[in-house]
């Protein structure tokens, strides 16, 4: 039982990073139809910035905020400078994003190097909960993600901006007729997704080493959770992340660990064939008129 609980917390902490990136992917695609493969590199850059700041002597949690701001600005520049121009041709945007992802990898290698980076455990404590040892940092990752998920979810379902966002995801033209500045929402969502990727990168490097190529692994899992849940659906991304995280964690603990990635991607493929719109229902991208 103790091992199971520890395995569960470990799975949830891995799932957290995937959920953070999945929320960004699902919102950006759902609203703007942008398939941004550089989103994984945004996370990697967030991790690298965190590493740089922490090794320069900054407190981890300040470094985390720094990474979120840095990647948020990066997202703003990418949206205003690049993706804005391919909104009408999503395929061009997709190809461009692959280019951006390779460029970001090489910029990071050029600025730092290609060696994997780690930081010491920022908390370095083990909490004993009900007689079970839990690594504190892992629990904090899960809690922080839960707060972000709850805030995002309530923001989208309750606030005026969230309702306008859902309306824009459902039908851009009609949303514009209501006076909703859809283009500005695209920028806002892109930046928000980037900030979450920055947070995901910071949390990831607190748990695992990161290399300049981490992003390309993360992005596949990010798209997997968004697709499993239904694109454009934040609740779906969370459900998808939990499913994938549990499959991962439990297969690593009880199955053959070397097949971990394959298990989760098989789950994605099966769900996409059986339920193309995702488990919780999503959009096929902005409605074309």
């Amino acid at each position, binding site marked *: 039982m103790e091992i199971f609980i520890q395995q569960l917390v470990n799975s949830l902490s891995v799932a957290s990073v995937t959920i953070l990136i999945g929320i960004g992917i699902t919102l950006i695609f759902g609203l703007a139809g942008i398939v941004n493969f550089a989103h994984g590199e945004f996370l990697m850059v967030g991790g690298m910035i965190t590493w740089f700041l922490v090794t320069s002597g900054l407190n981890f949690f300040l470094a985390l905020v720094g990474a979120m701001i840095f990647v948020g600005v990066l997202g703003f520049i990418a949206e205003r400078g690049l993706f804005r121009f391919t909104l009408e041709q999503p395929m061009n945007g997709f190809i461009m994003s692959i280019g951006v992802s390779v460029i970001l990898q090489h910029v990071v290698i050029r600025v730092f190097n290609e060696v994997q980076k780690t930081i010491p455990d920022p908390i370095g404590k083990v909490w004993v909960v009900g007689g079970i040892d839990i690594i504190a940092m892992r629990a904090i990752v899960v809690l922080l993600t839960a707060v972000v998920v709850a805030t995002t979810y309530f923001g989208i379902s309750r606030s*005026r901006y969230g*309702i*306008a966002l*859902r*309306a824009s995801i*459902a*039908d851009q*033209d*009609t*949303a*514009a*007729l*209501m*006076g*909703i*500045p*859809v*283009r500005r929402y695209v920028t806002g969502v892109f930046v928000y997704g980037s900030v979450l990727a920055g947070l995901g990168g910071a949390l990831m490097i607190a748990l695992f080493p990161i290399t300049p190529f981490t992003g390309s692994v993360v992005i596949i899992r990010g798209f997997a959770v968004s697709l499993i849940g239904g694109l454009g659906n934040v609740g779906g991304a969370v459900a998808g992340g939990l499913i994938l995280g549990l499959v991962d964690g439990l297969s690593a603990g009880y199955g053959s660990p070397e097949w971990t990635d394959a298990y989760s991607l098989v789950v994605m493929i099966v769900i996409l064939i059986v339920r193309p719109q995702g488990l919780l229902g999503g959009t096929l991208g902005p409605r074309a008129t």
Partner: protein
Amino acid sequence: MTLLQVDHLRTAYGVVVVHRDVSLTVDQDEIVTILGPNGAGKSTLLRAISGLLRPKNGIIRFDGKDVTGLPADRMAGIGVVMVPEGRRIFPDLTVLENLRLGAYCRKEGDAIEADIRLMESYFDVLSTKRNAKGGELSGGQQQMLAIARGLMARPRVLLLDEPSLGLSPMLIKQVRSVINDVRTKFSAAVLLVEQNAGLALAVADRGYLLQYGQIVASGPIAALRDHRLMHELYLGQGRGAR
């Protein structure tokens, strides 16, 4: 006084030209209709005026100001609001959320809440369904919600695209009285596009007859009614809703 003025408008989807040279006006407190057969370019004309489609050429003036090329969200902000064809209610949002979104460009919270109550008392079906999802309403209820949502922006001119589409004769009658009330109770001018000539002829003061993207006749509705083309276009259709 001229509220909306369209001069020499040219529109196209890619290389396909829809309108070569269309001019029209809508005065304050006026109900104007655009009539014409399927594919004449009526809906495209409304899309261009509402800002959803950027005109290739020509000038659109609203309240004396040049507003050509303003995007739809800005047009809504200045008082040119379109109720699109097929109602386009947000199916996953509640009736109340749909209404509130209609007032997105307004800031005064109290006045918006007051207008929601006004809409609910005017369209009584909306008050009983306020927490239902938009997608759960019947076609007629959705049309009432679509018009109410448009009115929530407090438009100065309301562009209505085929409001009678798919409705029963009973409901079409109701739409007709709502259009009249848009002018009297909500003090907005109306630019109406209709397939149902009977409805259009019954409510409008003035009309334009559009064919192949060109205006072939215009004038007071009484004069249009007897236009040679009207009989060709709407033979046997005009009596139904009158």
